[in-house]
């Protein structure tokens, strides 16, 4: 049904691992999908979209020495922490990528040496009021099976004390809870009030995934979809299939938002993708090498596991 495609992002600098990992998840899950349609492919354990949490971009700036000036740092790290939580959750079929211009780095386009970036003038609204995450969700069974929906998460600047993040699909998916005009998902109904420490962005993503498996029609943003789902499930299904097809046909479109970290899909190109794929499939052997290496000089311990005495580890008995 689908072309053998792959996705990539147009990331320019830093976090190349992120892209690879994101790629891993999909590459490994997509082929079995064709054969065993009814099953939810299990998430390969080693293909988790582990991402180097966007390291503090060494080049950016903050405001002056007063304490408020560290605000952007706090926001950036809050978002990074959220992101690490997302990574940890291993949500099946959901992949996100913080935008290049998040809290701290929204100044970056001016500041850094990426001259090309400077020329592109970005809509103020997108760069200065929100931190942006790009995402894509793969639906693996149910009514929306084979759906690949790209979306964008907008996180308010006063996070975590502000409103709940917004999640907008790039193309309005035919769904009772998705606004047919803007593509925005009704997140508010799940998170009426955003509570710090209790609510996390991964919950939003999980919610976004769930709505495609368990359809709720109360107070819909798309009344047509809601009514059809209740009254004429066949028509609803065919509309959904159309919507899924529409999304798939636009898969290779350029991302709406100009950002080096926006998720971009491209047709499978063996020259580019085969090597990366190979790397991922053989990836799991690495830890052992790593172990050997770490046995070298760095990392010292002679404490026996379970003991609290220094030098309690027994020496290997020596041949006499």
């Amino acid at each position, binding site marked *: 049904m689908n072309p053998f495609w792959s996705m990539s992002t147009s990331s320019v600098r830093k976090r190349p691992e992120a892209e690879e990992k994101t790629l891993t998840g999909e590459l490994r899950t997509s082929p079995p999908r064709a054969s065993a349609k009814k099953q939810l492919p299990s998430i390969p354990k080693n293909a*988790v979209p*582990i991402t180097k*949490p966007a*390291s*503090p*971009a*060494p*080049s*950016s*700036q*903050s*405001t*002056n*020495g007063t*304490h408020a*000036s*560290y605000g952007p*740092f*706090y926001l950036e*790290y809050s978002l*990074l*922490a*959220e992101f*690490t*939580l997302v*990574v*940890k959750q291993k949500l099946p079929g959901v992949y996100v990528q913080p935008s290049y211009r998040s809290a701290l780095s929204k*100044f970056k386009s*001016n*500041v*850094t*040496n990426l001259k090309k970036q400077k020329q592109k003038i970005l809509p103020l609204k997108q760069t200065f009021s929100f931190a942006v995450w790009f995402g894509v969700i793969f639906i693996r069974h149910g009514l929306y099976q084979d759906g690949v929906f790209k979306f964008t998460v907008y996180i308010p600047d006063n996070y*975590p004390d502000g409103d709940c993040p917004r999640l907008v699909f790039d193309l309005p998916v035919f769904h009772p809870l998705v606004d047919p005009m803007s593509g925005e998902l009704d997140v508010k109904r799940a998170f009426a009030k955003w509570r*710090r420490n209790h609510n996390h962005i991964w919950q939003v993503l999980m919610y976004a995934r769930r709505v495609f498996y368990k359809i709720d029609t109360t107070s819909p943003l798309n009344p047509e979809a809601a009514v059809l789902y209740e009254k004429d499930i066949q028509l609803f299904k065919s509309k959904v299939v159309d919507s899924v097809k529409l999304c798939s046909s636009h898969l290779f479109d350029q991302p709406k938002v100009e950002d080096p970290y926006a998720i971009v899909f491209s047709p499978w190109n063996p020259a580019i993708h085969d090597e990366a794929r190979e790397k991922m499939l053989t990836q799991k052997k*690495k*830890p052992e090498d*790593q*172990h050997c290496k*770490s*046995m070298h*000089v*760095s*990392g*010292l*311990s*002679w*404490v*026996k*596991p*379970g*003991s*609290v*005495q*220094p*030098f309690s*580890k027994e*020496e*290997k008995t*020596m*041949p006499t």
Partner: protein
Amino acid sequence: MMSTGTSISKNRQAVSLQGVDPETCMIVFRTHWAQVLKILEKHDPLKNTQAKYGAIPPDEASTVQNYVEHMLFLMIEEQAKDASMGPILEFVVSENIMEKLFLWSLRREFTDETKIEQLKMYEMLVTQSHQPLLHHKPILKPLMMLLSSCSGTATPAVEAELVVLLNQLCSIIAKDPSILELFFHTSEDQGAANFLIFSLLIPFIHREGRVGQQARDALLFIMSLSAENNVVANHIAENTYFCPVLATGLSGLYSSLPTKLEEKGDEWHCLLKDDWLLSPALVQFMNSLEFCNAVIQVAHPLIRNQLVNYIYNGFLVPVMAPALHKVTVEEVMTTTAYLDLFLRSVSEPALLKIFLRFILLHRHENVHILDTLTSRINTPFQLCVVSLALFRTLIGLHCEDVMLQLVLRYLIPCNHMMLSQRLAVKERDCYSVSAAKLLALTPVCCSTGITLTLESQEKAYILWTKAAQTKDSCRGTSESTCIVECGRAVDISYLQYLWEAQEAILQCLKDCKVWSAFYDGENPDPDTFIQTLAEENSKDVEHPMFHLQQRTPSMCSSSQITPFSEKMQLELEWDDSYDTGISAGSDVSSPHPYDDQGSTEMQLPAEPPKHIQEMKKNAIMLIKGSYIEESDFQDDVMVYRLCAQKDAQDDDNSEKKTLNVARKHRVESQTVNNGPLANSQLEMDLDEHSKRNSSLTQGITKEQTNQKMIAVDPQPDLELKPAPQDADRNLNIRLLSTDGEDFIAQYDKIIKELDPNSASLEEQKLGTPGPVSPAEEEEDFENFSADTPSAESMSSPFGPKEDFFPKHAARSQSAPFTGPFISVVLSKLENMLENSLHVNLLLIGIITQLASYPQPLLRSFLLNTNMVFQPSVRSLYQVLASVKNKIEHFASIEKDFPGLLLQAQQYLLFRVDTSDAAEELLTKGNIQPDSSAGKGRSLSEASPAILQPFLGHKGKKSLALPSLPVHVRNAVLAAALFPEFLKELAALAQEHSILCYKILGDFEDYY
């Protein structure tokens, strides 16, 4: 034969045998040999009864020599076909020519010159010949005879030549291990010690200069060979005195190190390569240490273990331990700096392990070396700086054992926090709350200065970038222009801190992967911790391995006297074995009356084989020279005492007092030291100890002083009950168990009583670092510091415990305790304004290093500002808050504070600027590639390593806040450092919040 080697090489240049018919060569060779043989037989007593020893006419000798030169030349040039011998070589072998020639040279006068010629001849043969010669016994055998004839007394010239030849032979063996067998067998035939080559090299191990270096290189060839060859390894470990010589030789070399280092200025805190290269004695020692390191790296485990044990028992315990407890501050400081240098230089884990074991577990005069070192942080002398540098090295190792003993064991029971907080240990700070709180401690008065005005801000920025550029060169100048465009004030430095924090934490995370536990408040389990500890202790009694550590009760009793009795024993052994001769064979059978005594105290963990003890004896004989020096070194107490007394007279009273204390316990040790007297002393000790043991349950030894404190903690209700007797008894136990400290404390007290001046002097001394209006300071001080060391604890600079530990010990019965190290570092930090700049830099370096550790227990204690601790526990946050208040107070009374601050900031930036080269230097001086030294640094963290006096001196002084009173200068510099320190901590807190999940195992994916 007189100048065979040289003349042959001359000939070779003139004549080339290219294209000459091999048969012709053969014929020439045979005729030459026939001529030579005629002369040889004429003088052979067996063949010619008229031949007389030594009566060889010179003309005949020179004839032989000429012929031989030509013959050797022909032999070297002969090209072998396939694997078979060339005809000349075959002839040489079948006629046993080499042996006959050797006998001939013996028959003539066997002078040094003859030896040198022969040695040179063989060196040329083995290195230049086109075919392998050493496989042939008729060649090998005379070679071995020559070597063994050179083994005795030899002049430097012969030694030099001998070592060159041995070195060549070793390198040949390393390339072709099959020859090794032959060497073994040949030596057997000789009836001499096996593996002659090796034995011959041993005396040169510690030699200085080229000879020593060549010998060590040669030995390393054999060592790496031993890794794969059990026979060689066994032979070296069991039949040679290689390891003992190597280890005890360190002691000998150490004794010739300067006991005082020349004045380096008060910024000096550790020995860098530039320093020690200036001292020949130190260079020699470092060469030997480096060699030990190399041997341990390449040698067979058998040799490695033996060597490591000898270094522990033959160098660290008998030499380093007493040296760390010398009489004068200078000596102790020097030793500490040496120890720090050794730790930084050693890279092999096995070797590092015994150094660390020595520091962490060895007890000298009943006090752990670690505790002694810790207590020295609180001294007002330069010793404090050197000790801090040592701790920075230790913490930078990222070694679990070090961190466990230093900090974590006190945190594991989680007594330092409120019970409800235990769950919060693992919590992460998602919203940078802690970072915000830390940054909020920045004193208002410090936000002025460099970061405020646009001009200076830009300047500051440029300076910062310069420091940063080495690490991240992709940042260009466009940045700074942008910043100016933006018109914003910039805290570029914070980004740098974040970057460095990430580097530091990741490095630490990587290193801590091998740790045995997470230290997250659950593993090890805080509730069973004490039990585990107790169980392990009781187990240790039977554990043979721990004999080495002197951990068991029986060991404890002797630990005080071990070094001395051991030495005594060594001396006795020496006396006893003096007439047994040096040959290994005869030694094995010689009786050894001191075996029993020896094996309990100083021998290898496993019951050492007899021959090992014999070997040790040999070793002592062998390095007799150096060992005598060494014993002088130890017996010199009298001399030191005299010096000390003289110093005391010269110096001021406070100094004298110090010396008194030290002298007192010197006297004590001296009694032990003096031969027969030691026995009674020993018995006394044993008695005392057994009493003590009975009073302690579960055989917890006094060594567990600190652990015991914890052990008492979990039953606070028990103590709260009105049971004064109980408490008293506890206290008694405590006093008994810390009697070492107690006894010093008593001396202190007595001396104090005798000297009415001392009290006032103390206060004065406390003030000297920076008496910033003491009266006002006092208030702050009292408010915040429950456990700030009072004046008394400063009084005895290196009489370790007198106040410090007993005080904490007493406290520990009612209050939780985060360990002596944390307390002393935090209390020192609290005095930041009085500390000199380099003390502060080291403190900051240590704390940031500690804060880089990913273990939740440590992280939550240092960086989680929301944690609620027990009231008696002082957290880093509280201490920082106190410093903040002090700074603000200081700013309010100092007239031109903003101006001074600006000056201080500029001065610090200037130092960072000049630091890049210095950093490079430190890394170079470090054998260890990724020790704490070489990483990215910024103002505060970088500076300690960077701000070395040796480079920085030029021009730095001129900028250094001229004409300020010391206390104002210190305070202003501290005020300038403080906000940077906060940023560093905040950066670490932020990075932890996003990196800590990596502990859980997804870690590999990062790299």
